């Protein structure tokens, strides 16, 4: 595997010459393509089926979320973050709320913390289920998609009962929660955990030892731990390359240090290992949920936060372990009600950098597999 920095960029200025070269075929995959998970555009340079080089073109879903933040108060910006990684909206909100709380030097009360952890882990589960379904669909297995969506529905039902929304939940408020857990929340979560445990085995039954699945994923899109760190790749992709780095353990936030769970890691850094790591993560999430739901303390759900938030002048960087990797918020406050600048470090955007390194020299079908295994969400890449 070559170093990513030695790769020459694809020369987009002279497309005609590339076309005249009979050995190479330039293919424009996306922005409308069934397997680029949204509006990612990948320009592929092919020699037969072999990928000689590729370039990602992003920005088709750019909504200027970071700029919008500068014209909204801290509270008003909260729902906007849900729209970045829309399959893991709760994680986005957790990161943002905690960053602002850090800036305000307040801390959410323990009861709120517990409910936050439960919802975030449920959301991680939902995000991984969506990833599994679409990833398997990209590789040609159409059935897991329906299985995972069937079970993800149960999570969304809990969200809907909790806050009325299914996807862009806006579940958290700065300083805690707006809503008290509804009557029977704990029972619902417990039921879900016992319902979904055998279902994960069911997904694995379809794929884990499937010969074709193994051939399609083993040794595909290999990336070493060193390359991951050099490129800033985080999340399950990094862990599958053998680096044991999970912000829930490395820099515990919320109240993750109260829970007992493991960080699953892989060795080979290939697509199969990433699959295994994510499957294990689902089980770990369930473990955390089980512990959290047992120990929800009584008490208030909102800390004392001023109605008009004017954080002191300063800046803060807070990052959490979103389902896709390190999700960081860098907020600069000028002492007014609106942030001076909000910069988001989205895991999908950073992880997408590794695409070329992972795909070069592989086949077209592998590009699809690698895009799937990186688990990108274009709402987060483009913001």
């Amino acid at each position, binding site marked *: 595997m070559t170093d990513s920095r030695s790769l020459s960029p694809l020369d987009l200025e002279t497309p005609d010459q590339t076309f005249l070269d009979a050995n190479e*075929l330039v*293919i*424009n995959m996306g922005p409308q*393509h*069934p*397997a680029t998970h949204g509006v990612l555009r990948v320009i592929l340079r*092919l020699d037969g*089926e072999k990928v000689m080089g590729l370039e990602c073109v992003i920005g088709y879903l750019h909504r200027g979320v970071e700029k919008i933040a500068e014209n909204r108060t801290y509270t008003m910006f909260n729902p906007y973050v849900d729209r970045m990684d829309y399959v893991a909206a709760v994680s986005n909100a957790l990161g943002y709320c905690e960053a602002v709380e850090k800036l305000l030097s307040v801390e959410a009360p323990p009861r709120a913390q517990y409910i936050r952890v439960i919802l975030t882990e449920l959301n991680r589960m939902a995000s991984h289920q969506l990833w599994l379904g679409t990833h*398997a*669909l*990209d*590789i*040609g*297995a*159409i*059935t897991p*998609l*329906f*299985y995972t969506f*069937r079970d993800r529905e149960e999570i969304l039902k809990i969200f809907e009962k909790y806050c009325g929304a299914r996807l862009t939940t806006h579940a958290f408020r700065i300083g805690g929660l707006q809503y008290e857990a509804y009557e029977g929340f704990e029972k619902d979560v417990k039921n879900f955990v016992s319902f979904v445990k055998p279902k994960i085995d069911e997904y694995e039954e*379809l*794929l884990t030892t*499937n010969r*074709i*699945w193994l*051939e*399609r994923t083993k040794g595909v899109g290999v990336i070493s731990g060193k390359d991951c760190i050099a490129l800033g790749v985080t999340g399950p992709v990094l862990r599958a390359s053998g680096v044991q780095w999970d912000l829930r353990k490395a820099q515990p936030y919320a109240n993750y240090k109260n829970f007992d769970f493991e960080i699953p890691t892989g060795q080979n850094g290939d697509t199969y290992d990433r699959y295994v790591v994510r499957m294990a993560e689902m089980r770990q999430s369930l473990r955390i949920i089980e512990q959290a739901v047992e120990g929800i303390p009584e008490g208030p759900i909102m800390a004392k936060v001023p109605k008009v938030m004017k954080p002191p002048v300063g800046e803060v960087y807070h990052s959490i372990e979103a389902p896709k990797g390190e999700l960081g918020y860098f907020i600069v406050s000028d002492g007014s009600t609106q942030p001076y600048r909000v910069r988001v470090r989205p895991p999908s955007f950073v992880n997408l950098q590794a695409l070329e390194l992972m795909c070069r020299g592989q*086949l*077209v*079908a*592998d590009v*699809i597999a690698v895009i799937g295994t990186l688990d990108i969400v274009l709402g987060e890449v483009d913001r």
Partner: protein
Amino acid sequence: MHGVVQYIQSYLESNQTPGAAGNFFWATVYILLVFVGLSVAVIAMNWLERKILAHMQVRLGPMRVGPHGLLQPIADALKLLLKEDIIPAEADKIVFWVAPFIVVLAAFTVFVVVPFGPTHAITDMNIGILFMLGVSSLSVLGIVTAGWASNSHYPLIGALRSSAQMVSYEVAMGLAVVSVILMTSLNEASTGTLSMIGIVQAQQAQQQWFVFKFFPLGLIGFFIFAVAMVAETNRAPFDLPEAESELTAGFHTEYSGFRWSLFFLAEYSAMIAVSSIAVTLWLGGWLRPFPNALQGSTWELVFSLIPGLAFLFLAAMTFYSTVRMPKHPLFRVQTIGLAGFGALLGLIGLILFIPGVRMRVQDIFWFSAKVAGFMYLYIWYRGTFPRYRFDQLMKVGWKVLLPTGLALLILTAVVAMRSELLADVRGVWHP
């Protein structure tokens, strides 16, 4: 006038297929019957695939158009016919126009020699199986031209993939077929045959389906063919030429409306065609199951009643669904429609009990039932397997199936030679 009637009647006394008897009238009738039957089969297959796949995937499938979505294929066909016919501006128009017809032609022509019964075939060719393999491989020409004429990248890659795939799997397929042809020579006359009807008659004479012949050689040959035929028809897990997630729709990306439906028709009739080959060569064609163990006139009667009973069973299931339909007045038309469909199935079942019909139709029934088994397998594969990658597909074809096929051929030849010699010594056949 009298001459014409005599010409038509003269065939009924012969024991041959209309083609072999040289009777144009009955040949035309058979062609029409096969064509209509095939179209109905494709329509039924369309509905069944969606329903079965849906139930494998914990959903209901089509439910709105007609009771249980029974009219969905018709609605789809209508939609496709009414759609705007788009030919891309940059496409090579004539080739683009011709390509789907080549594919359809190849897919339909092979049915000329498919034996639905000892006399129920359009014709009996002495090179039947060779004709089938040859004509069905013509469809690759249509696919390549379709991909090329579209003048677009995804179709081009799809076409290249499919040509490589179909050509390489034909080799393994051919080897498996040759091993069966060796087996046909083990009869008293000691002559092998390439005729589709002859192959089934050889199985009848040897009292054994070729899938069980020289165990496990026949089984291996059948397995090779069963894998190669999926690749040959571009179906999951070998559906790379139209890999949706990679190539949007492969070679027919630029096709729409009626032209696209021709590709669809060709794909499904090709599936039926290769399944027919597999059934004819290994599973005893039109022969009923257990001809040896369950002999005698009683069993003959029992087995001849099965076609009618099968249809009555389907009718009963339909009536059960009718009873379970929602009682709301909005569903009245659908309920009546479903009951009508059940009545139709029941009527067919009752007609199949009439002794004259029963005896003529049971060959066709057993043949179709076996083919339907393969169709179910196709759907099952699609619901279960991920897709192979191009190089892995080639690896399976050239490094696994081809050497196995070669070894199988040699072993079959050796074993066949040995049993032939033994039979000569003992003077007894049925090796």
